[in-house]
């Protein structure tokens, strides 16, 4: 199994090539780009449905936990009469409840995002490809995994033939 990188200089050409590769039957694809390109997620079939649900769950947990934290403290364990207000002063609790919900969503959301992106990953053979660093500057790269090197390489060249000037790099094993 070997990998190659196809290097493009514009997101539109990369997207076009990605579509062509999908049509040609390549399924193990990866995109490296300096910015999010609309449509890539759909073509890679990688629209995460889990992340929004995880974040909503974290928000609900944070809100319930934040409210109970204040309720248990103020109304159950240390009931104090403050200016005649009810022990369960929910309007006063609401800002901290909101803050804790936001905090839980942020922390869990970032961690879940990293986990779903399989980060952190300290080394990947694609890092050794010359010019890879420009994926974070101005180049749009498609990584293709070839299962049967010679046959797939031929199909790949045919699928990308119309993109003149495209550079194809081998990823070292």
């Amino acid at each position, binding site marked *: 199994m070997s990998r190659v990188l196809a290097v493009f200089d514009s997101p539109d050409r990369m997207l076009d090539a990605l579509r062509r590769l999908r049509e040609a039957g390549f399924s193990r694809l990866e995109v490296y780009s300096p910015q999010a390109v609309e449509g890539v997620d759909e073509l890679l079939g990688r629209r995460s449905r889990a992340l929004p649900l995880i974040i909503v769950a974290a928000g609900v947990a944070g809100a319930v936990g934040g409210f109970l934290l204040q309720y248990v403290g103020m109304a159950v364990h240390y009931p104090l009469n403050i*200016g*005649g*207000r009810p022990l369960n002063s929910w*309007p*006063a609790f*609401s*800002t901290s409840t909101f803050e804790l919900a936001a905090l839980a969503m942020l922390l869990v959301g970032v961690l879940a995002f990293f986990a779903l992106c399989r980060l952190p990953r300290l080394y990947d053979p694609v890092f050794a490809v010359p010019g890879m660093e420009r994926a974070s500057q101005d180049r749009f790269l498609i990584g293709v995994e070839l299962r049967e090197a010679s046959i797939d390489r031929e199909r790949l060249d045919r699928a990308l033939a119309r993109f003149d000037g495209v550079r194809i790099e081998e990823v070292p094993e």
Partner: protein
Amino acid sequence: MRGRTASLLVGVAGLVLCAVGLAFDPGAVLRGWLAAFAFWVGLPLGALMLLLAHDLTGGRWGRPAREPLRAAAATMLLLALCLLPILFALPLLYPWARPEEAAPLKNLFYLNGPFFVARALVFVVLWTLLSLVAAWRAAAVPAPVAVVGLILLALTATLAAFDWTMSLEPEWGSSIYGMMVISGHLLAALALATLAAVVAGPAVGEGERMDLGSLLIAGILLWFYLSFMQFLIIWEEDLPKEISWYVARLAGGWGWVAVLGALGQGALPFFALIWWPVKRSRIGLGAVCGLLLASHLLECWWLVLPGTPGGWTWFAPVATLGIGGLWAALFLGRLKAVRRQPAAEAPHAAGLVGEARHG
């Protein structure tokens, strides 16, 4: 055309009922009229602010929203006329205009008949002039005019909210009140523009609709934040002369109206819009806009009616239909005229520049 005739008929019927009511219970008619006016004046006022803001910043959302916003802002003249009955009947509405009740007040240097009327005239004349500049011409307003206009609008709309509805309880004051009312205006105008964009059909792209949906979320958050902060601060202080405003507005049926308003203009549309299938579907987005407008109407009634000695009156819905019928006829007519105009170059170019700036 049929829609305009029908609205015109509803409007005239409402006005006739109000006129008949004046003979029997002028106080009830006028507080119903003020409650209705507080709702309808927000649409052209909010639309004017959004138009000027779009002239300055641009953005894709303006492409479908500018036409309904211009049509809504063009109705300012009608609302200026609707203010007149209130100006002629100040003692029927405002305690500070009744000598026997005004005697203990310390803020009469500000709250007195002539000054109030003069301020009101300055506000509506300024707003009407701005609407002539921004809404009746297709071209974008030059940036200096838009900047000065927005600053003046923020100041005058705040003072207008203090004057027209907050002074119903002249002992009570809240510095957040003006911004809270303005955020309601903005939200209602944006919901109206989004509704028009949804009704316009598939001609409006999904991206534009999603942008409007995102802006609605921002509007909802702003309104909810300001409204809740005012409540939280006053509730925590619990001072007799401040909490009385909420006591009147949370007692009995008005408490349920407050809950409905918080749900219908806050929680429900917020959670509906952050769930992207709703924001993406035309029916979902249209339903959210309808809910926002209906809840905003409730909020305006809730701001005005419990603060008056008589409380709820059936003249509130009657006057709402009366002003609203005329308003809708004018709005639909202007919308048709605006849409028939050849696509103006200037606002579109401004939109493109704005996008590039945000890009």
